[in-house]
C-alpha cells in the first residue's frame, strides 16, 4: 500500500519560500501538522532570493531536505500590466537560483508552484543527482514572451523526464482574439511572422 504523504514528510526539514503569504501560511500549517522536523520560512528582508549568494546562505541556514518554492514578486493589476517584463524576470531569476542552489546542495525534492492569470496550474520539479529534471511544467500566458521558442522547446525536451508533460496556456489566433490582440492589446501580435524568434528588448 502506498505510503501516506504525511508519513513521507514526518521528520523532514523543509524550506518554504513565500511561507508567510496566503498560500504559504496554509502550506506551512499542513507541513507542521504532518510532523516535519523543521519548517523554515525565509523572509525577503533577510534573503533576496534573486541573488545566488543569498539563496546559498538561506540553504546553509535552513539545511532543507525539501524545498517548496511559493515566493513571487507580485503587484496589483496595474503594476502587472505595466511591468510584465520586470515581474517575469524577477520571478524567473528567483526560481532559477533556488533550483540551481538546490541542485548544488543536494536537496532531494524541489517543488515550485506558480500562477499567472489563471488557477490552478502546478509546476512540479524533482532534483535527482546532479541534474534538474522536471516531471510536469505549467506555463500560463507567458509562452508568447519567450523570444526564442525553438531554444525553449529544446530545453524543455532536455529537462523533462521521459513521459513528463509540459502544459502551456496562452493566447490563440482566433476569430475573436485576432482583432483584439492586433488593435487593442499592448503586446506585439504578428501571426505573419515566419520566425519563431523576436527581440527580447531587454539588456
Amino acid at each position: 500500500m502506498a505510503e501516506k504523504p504525511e508519513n513521507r514528510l514526518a521528520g523532514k526539514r523543509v524550506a518554504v519560500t513565500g511561507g508567510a503569504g496566503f498560500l504559504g501560511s496554509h502550506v506551512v500549517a499542513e507541513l507542521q501538522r504532518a510532523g516535519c522536523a523543521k519548517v523554515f520560512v525565509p523572509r525577503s528582508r533577510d534573503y533576496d532570493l534573486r541573488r545566488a549568494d543569498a539563496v546559498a546562505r538561506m540553504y546553509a541556514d535552513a539545511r532543507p531536505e525539501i524545498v517548496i518554492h511559493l515566493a513571487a514578486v507580485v503587484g496589483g493589476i496595474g503594476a502587472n500590466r505595466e511591468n510584465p517584463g520586470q515581474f517575469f524576470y524577477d520571478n524567473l531569476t528567483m526560481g532559477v537560483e533556488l533550483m540551481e542552489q538546490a541542485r548544488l546542495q543536494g536537496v532531494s525534492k524541489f517543488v515550485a508552484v506558480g500562477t499567472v492569470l489563471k488557477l490552478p496550474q502546478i509546476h512540479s520539479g524533482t532534483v535527482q543527482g546532479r541534474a534538474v529534471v522536471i516531471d510536469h511544467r505549467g506555463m500560463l500566458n507567458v509562452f508568447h514572451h519567450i523570444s526564442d521558442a525553438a531554444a525553449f522547446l529544446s530545453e524543455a525536451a532536455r529537462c523533462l523526464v521521459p513521459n513528463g508533460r509540459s502544459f502551456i496556456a496562452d493566447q490563440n489566433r482566433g476569430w475573436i482574439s485576432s482583432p483584439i490582440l492586433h488593435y487593442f492589446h499592448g503586446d506585439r501580435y504578428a501571426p505573419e511572422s515566419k520566425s519563431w524568434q523576436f527581440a527580447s528588448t531587454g539588456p
Partner: protein
Amino acid sequence: MAIRKHRPLSGANGALAWIVFARDRSRFEREFPNLKLLQYNPTTPLRYWLSGGLKRWSLLPESAWKYATTFDKLPLKVSPHFGSFVEIELLKSDGVA
C-alpha cells in the same frame, strides 16, 4: 524599487503559440520528435475579454458571471476558431533528448 521597462522578456509575439503548434506544426514535429503534441485545445472565446482582462472594468455585471462559463462554451461548438486562448499539452517521449 523602481520598475523599469524594456527588461528581458518584455518582447512578445501574441501569435507565437499558434505559429509554433498550429501553423508550423510540421516543423515542430520534425525538429522536436521527442515532444509529442497531445492537445491544442482552443478555449475561452469571450469570457476574458468581457471581464476587462487586466483592466479594472468589466463589461458584465457580477451577477452574470455564473452564466458566463456556460455561455462561453457555445461558440466553440460552432468552431474551435472562436477560441481566444489555447491549452497545449506536450509529452516527452521515452527517447533520448
